[in-house]
């Protein structure tokens, strides 16, 4: 039974694309057959984070418009054979997406994959609406700051009203993924605490991804953080989140950098 999962947030720059790539790769590593779809038509990024930007021939819009077949547009990951990417078009805009076309593609993908991850663009316009339209589950990526939390609240409201599931009277299962969490700053009270965020959003927590240089490093080399350095703190946090998505019960901890003390001692010498 295929699951359609939308990764969304409302606000931009909170880590939707990074999280989509990391969650998709971690699911694939666990043996699931996964496709990640970039819905950010006109500003595509997922191909870069996945390291597939040089292999894009056809894209989502080509398939929506019937120019190409789905099998022609899907790009298989070079590292994980059960991870696929459906890239967005960079030359078009979100108006090229149609409800009917997206529905057809999702239905076709449901027959072939275990997980369909939709990377939503920022905002609440057409692209974001169609990314969440056919979702069974949603991961709402939130940073520990008020603007991000309020935008997430707005998106949760839309997941409860604008999706196909909501219109049928069913519920989209929602999860909060807190990213760019800095425990040191949170303890100093410079960030919203986890409790405050969950109290405002009244939605279960999927995971807490620490702020880390590893995330930037991984996206620069075009590799999902869970593949690039599986031992890093954010990679472990994403893996835990995926295990929770699969129904496992995993203790909620905030992974920290293991080599922090050594880095601090040795960090200056290299500089």
């Amino acid at each position, binding site marked *: 039974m295929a699951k359609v999962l939308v990764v969304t947030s409302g606000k931009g720059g909170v880590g939707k694309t990074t999280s989509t790539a990391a969650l998709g790769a971690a699911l694939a590593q666990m043996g699931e057959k996964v496709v990640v779809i970039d819905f950010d038509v006109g500003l595509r990024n997922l191909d870069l984070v996945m390291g597939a930007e040089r292999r894009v021939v056809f894209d989502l819009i080509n398939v929506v418009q019937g120019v190409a077949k789905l099998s022609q547009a899907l790009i298989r990951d070079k590292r994980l054979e059960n991870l696929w990417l459906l890239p967005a078009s960079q030359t078009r805009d979100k108006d090229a997406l149609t409800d009917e076309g997206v529905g057809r593609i999702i239905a076709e993908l449901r027959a072939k994959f275990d997980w369909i991850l939709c990377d939503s663009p920022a905002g609440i316009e057409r692209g974001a609406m169609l990314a969440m339209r056919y979702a069974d589950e949603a991961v709402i990526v939130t940073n520990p700051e008020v603007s991000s939390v309020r935008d997430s609240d707005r998106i949760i*409201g839309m997941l409860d009203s604008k999706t196909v599931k909501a219109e049928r009277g069913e519920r989209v299962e929602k999860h909060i993924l807190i990213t760019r969490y800095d425990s040191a700053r949170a303890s100093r009270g410079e960030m919203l605490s986890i409790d405050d965020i969950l109290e405002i959003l009244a939605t279960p927590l999927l995971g807490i991804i620490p702020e880390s240089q590893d995330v930037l490093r991984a996206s620069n080399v075009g590799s999902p953080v869970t593949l690039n350095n599986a031992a890093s703190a954010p990679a472990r946090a994403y893996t835990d989140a995926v295990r929770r998505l699969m129904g496992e019960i995993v203790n909620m901890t905030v992974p920290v950098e293991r080599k922090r003390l050594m880095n601090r001692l040795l960090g200056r010498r290299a500089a």
Partner: protein
Amino acid sequence: MDAIAKATRQPVRMRGRSYVAFTFCPVVPLAGWLEEIDATLARSPGFFVGKPVVLDLSAVDLSQSAIAHLVTSLEQRNIRVLGVEGVDADRVTTSMPPLLTGGRHCILVQNEPKKPETKPKPASLVLESPVRSGQSIFSEGDVTVLGSVGSGAEIVAGGSIHVYGALRGRAIAGFSGNSAARIFCQKIEAELLAIDGYYQTAEEIDVALRNRPAQAWLEGDVMKIAPLN
């Protein structure tokens, strides 16, 4: 140089205009017919007030003095006769209402004052899930939320608003002029509270009240906010 203003000639403007009038058709005996009029007046005394009446005398053959008597009898009943028709011109003197011709039938539309419809009391609205940012809830009656109202959300109610959770958005109660409406919440962090047009923004709400259960109501034209415990 003297200039003498010439009186400009003002042409007399005449326009045709038609009016709707009641037409009375008296029948013999006239005394009996007048009794009918009296009975109508007894039922609704103001029925003919301000309404022009034309006498159609074609069904009866009355002398000049009889017509004069009939007109006076009607005037005694506060019925003003606008004109007379269906009678020879020599029967009508200058002191009587003028003779009219060319009347046409028309259908009278009665504008009876409609009874004020008793409106059913507006139903109250109960929401079992949190109200998210950007959502706007509107109800003519009371609104009850079992959950929080997010920052950037809005509740507009004709009656009172009850929030069993944190109120972080806007609450507008009694919008249709109900100054008795109140706002209740478990935790007050509202962006704006309004009752019957009187409002307070977050900045004006006492800091000491923040995060506490509270209620807001109107006392005259002052909004009061007090903790609930």
